[in-house]
């Protein structure tokens, strides 16, 4: 099956656990199979990930779960950092576990864009296709996602 890793990675980051992610991926491939005639060429990875994303949101609605992730707090990310430990040095100490938790703690609309960009290496255009939002939204969301992530990571590191 093509793009299985990409599909699972996105689903796993969105759903937050393995079992739900597997359900979402299975749903997505079934839909992909059904909508195959709707595939008009172009990038099949974007096409499939768009289906995965939609399958996830459908799943979310069916299961009526409260979405994980903390709402974005403007106060948090405007904290001044003009003095103190050079942040670069601090950030490089972040390990996978910490990063994983920090990313999982992001609101979902930030998380999905960050995963597509940083882990899947998608261009802004491809992200716009998958998330079905305008290019400008991709840019601004990604910016806010990263600023938010940086704040979360720094906070967790400072608590250590």
């Amino acid at each position, binding site marked *: 099956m093509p*793009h299985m890793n990409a599909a699972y990675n996105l689903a796993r980051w969105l759903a937050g656990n393995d079992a739900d992610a597997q359900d979402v991926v299975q749903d997505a491939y079934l839909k992909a199979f059904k909508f195959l005639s709707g595939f008009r060429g172009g990038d099949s990875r974007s096409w499939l990930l768009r289906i995965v994303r939609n399958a996830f949101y459908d799943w979310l609605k069916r299961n009526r779960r409260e979405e994980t992730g903390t709402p974005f707090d403007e106060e948090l990310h405007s904290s001044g950092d003009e003095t103190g430990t050079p942040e670069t040095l601090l950030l*490089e100490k972040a390990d996978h576990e910490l990063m994983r938790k920090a990313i999982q703690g992001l609101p979902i609309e930030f998380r999905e864009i960050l995963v597509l960009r940083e882990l899947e290496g998608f261009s802004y255009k491809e992200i716009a296709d998958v998330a079905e939002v305008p290019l400008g939204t991709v840019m601004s969301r990604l910016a806010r996602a990263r600023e938010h992530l940086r704040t979360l990571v720094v906070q967790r590191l400072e608590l250590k």
Partner: protein
Amino acid sequence: MNCEEAQEVIHAYLDGELDPVHNLAVEQHLQECTACARSFQGQQSLRKVMAGGSLYFEAPKGLEQRVRSAVRQAGKAESPRWSWPRAWSWPRVLAPLAAAAVALLIAMPLILRTSTEDQLSQEIVSAHVRSLMANHLTDVASTDQHTVKPWFNGKLSFSPPVIDLAVQGFPLIGGRLDFVENHPVAALIYQHRLHFINLFIWPSAHVSHTAEESRSQQGYNSIHWSQGGMEYWAVSDMNQHDLRDFARLLRNESAPHSSP
């Protein structure tokens, strides 16, 4: 560029999504502003930590098999309405096909993509339209082939044959440097009554001598051939018949003159 503007585009800069002009402006700003430079470095470190693949969730072993059989099941459920030859069960035939179809068709764009010839001819038509719209038909405007030909010296790695066909009704009006498939090519511009013809020339990848091949796209006609180690694409809004005449005249004139 001030800090506010820089912060707006700094992520696009990090991702290599900015145009060259903005890129330069951001670079300059980062050299001048320590606060922005620091936040940029912070983002670079963050990115470094995220890279490396350790955050990527690879599909677990059984998932592929599970999805495959789910798709197969779905194929079985849908196929009975096709059950025409009772002898060999369609579902059994279709089920593996269904799974294979997903695999194949998702990988299809590579195969389905229009042929390179089509893409090339699309690009040629675009270059033609661009030259007319941008009011940039010629870099060197001259009806004299002995002015146009030397103009290309040093601009291209080859010397395009330049032939005037004024007597035959297709006067040369100039030359231009253009890009096709990211390579610099020679563009010669001819006029026929009120129509312009762009003739694109570049060296062939392999020695060939092919017959003319005509196409029509978005109301433009194009004609392509190769001769004497060069590829020729002529494109114009004039009719296919006249364009063929033009190509034929050009081929005759540029053929090595052999005495009988």
